[in-house]
């Protein structure tokens, strides 16, 4: 089991007001799964993503990553978990604008203390994997949206994490780039990478093998029956 969230609650406390964001969320993800978490904005999906990504801590509940309880770790250990076990892909790519694609991909390896030569080698490998071996020395400004997201994926994968977390990965892409990206995710998944993806788009969510819905902080598993019903209702909506 890669991911084991049980009875997660998260409240935001703002000036005497307690806003519950997640309510008794449990999610188990096995090695090699491809899970999409779908929900409208304000549903709590980003908060859930932050908790899975070890960027935030729940108010209540337990969370095991690779069989290890992560909630009792200090900030430094959390940073190391993010570095070694997780890969992040963001909606707006979050590439360093002044650096080349290669430099961007090398970034996690710097924090992992990898030596310069090996760093460049591994970053090149990762860029080649996403089909960008020709554009390694380009800066983000010289790349298209789809290419930028590929660089971000290369960066996420360069440390060979157990789990790839994608937060609205197609949010800033046109439909053609989105389709290509989803194909890349599928390939990565076939190679054994576990993927958890957040999206508000049902179309994108349907690319995953398993889809969860989140609404008002409550997570529900979408069954095959739902899927049939949606498809019967015309298209994927």
């Amino acid at each position, binding site marked *: 089991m890669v991911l084991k969230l049980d009875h997660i609650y998260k409240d935001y406390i703002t000036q005497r007001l307690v806003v519950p964001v997640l309510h008794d969320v449990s999610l188990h993800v096995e090695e090699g799964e491809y899970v999409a978490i779908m929900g409208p904005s304000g549903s709590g999906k980003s908060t859930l993503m*932050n908790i899975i*990504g070890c*960027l*935030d801590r729940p108010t209540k509940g337990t969370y095991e990553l690779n069989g290890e309880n992560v909630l009792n770790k200090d*900030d*430094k250990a959390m*940073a*190391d978990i*993010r*570095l*070694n076990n*997780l890969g*992040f892909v*963001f909606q*707006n790519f*979050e590439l*360093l604008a*002044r*650096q080349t694609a290669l430099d961007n991909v090398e*970034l*996690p390896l*710097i*924090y*992992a203390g990898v030596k310069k030569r090996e760093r460049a080698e591994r970053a090149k490998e990762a860029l080649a994997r996403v089909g960008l071996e020709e554009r390694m020395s380009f800066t983000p400004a010289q790349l298209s949206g789809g290419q930028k997201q590929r660089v971000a994926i290369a*960066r*996420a994968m360069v*440390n060979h994490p157990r789990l790839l977390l994608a937060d609205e990965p197609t949010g800033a892409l046109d439909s053609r780039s989105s389709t290509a990206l989803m194909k890349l995710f599928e390939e990565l998944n076939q190679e054994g990478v576990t993927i958890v993806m957040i999206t508000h788009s049902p179309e994108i969510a349907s690319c995953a093998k398993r889809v969860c819905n989140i609404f008002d902080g409550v997570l529900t598993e979408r069954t095959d029956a739902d899927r049939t019903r949606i498809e019967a209702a015309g298209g994927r909506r």
Partner: protein
Amino acid sequence: MLENIRLAFHGILSHKLRSLLTMLGIIIGIGSIIAIVSTIQGTNDQLREQLIGSGNNTVKVTLGSGGDAYDMDMGSKPEGIYPVSDSTIRKILALDTVENVTCYTNRVLWDTAVYYIGNGMSTSNISGVDDQYFNTLGYKVKTGRTFLQSDYDIFSKVAVLDQNAADALFKGSNPLGKTIEIYKKPFVVVGIVYEPSSFERDIEDIEDYQLMNDDDSNGQIFIPKATWPVLFQYDEPENVIVKAVSTDDMTKAGQRTAKILNDAITVEQPQVTYQAEDLLGDLKNQQKMQNATNVQLMWIAGISLLVGGIGVMNIMLVSVTERTSEIGLKKAIGARKSSILAQFLTEAAVLTSLGGLLGVVAGVVMSRIINIMTGIPVGINWGAAIIAVLFSMAIGILFGLLPSVQASNLDPIDALRRE
């Protein structure tokens, strides 16, 4: 670390104008300090050269009591003081600060005692010198020769003149081989010597040294020590000049020599004792006075550095705000707090070190301009330059601390959400 430095340079180069403006305070501060230090150094070097003479390093150890030099004109010899013995000379030469030593007897003649035919010298300075005198003091032969061993052995009545004496007596004609009269005794002139100009002590601006310097007579006449009793008395007490190994050893060499000489005096409470001149010590006092004023200037330059440091802090704070998402991303992909802290501190330190480096360049240029415009000599002190760069690095770290801590404490969630 290396990666951080590379990143810092990358950042600085991509905001050239901003970085330059940020560094300006540091550049001005360090530049002023370097200019001040260079001017101090130059003035000190000049003082030192004027007082001590570059390269000769000789110290006079003369007889006197209190501040007054002993004057043999009084007639009677001081009790218990004899010519410096060979064993005393060996002791002096054994000092590790002493390179060479010479002994001489000396009189300043205030009456006209020296003649060549009709020309007399109203005042003259006459010395009975040993064979080490000319080379120890760095005299050069202009024409003729100095004394030979045979001159000492057979008590030759020969004399060596300096240019002043030669001019006074011979009015331009060739003095070599001519016979001059000293107290009605004939002496044959065998040579003219001169002190190379760099060895001349130009200490007119310090009153004290005018008194100690006997060059104020009309000219110098040298005769062999052995011949001295022909004119004056037997066994007159001698003065000593030691040549120190280095300029810094001058004070020590003088004091040690005086001690050895005083130990050789045979009476309990001598009327006069050997006293070493302390040019170096006086120089240091002189420099200290000069430096006191300059320290105030340094404080003013220091304030400029403080302002520069605050400027750096300000721009770093802006930079942290600007790069919130970069910091958020780096933290999200696994950068520890300490990595972010190190990155920003390095950036601040590189920025200010670069400022310091440019400041050193500006300071060197400034001191050259001061030199050209006012004629004040400048000497670049590279030690101070290195300290200046290290100091500006420290300023960067000090003033970069607050922004860096702020950056490292950013919550990655907030940092990524803020766009």
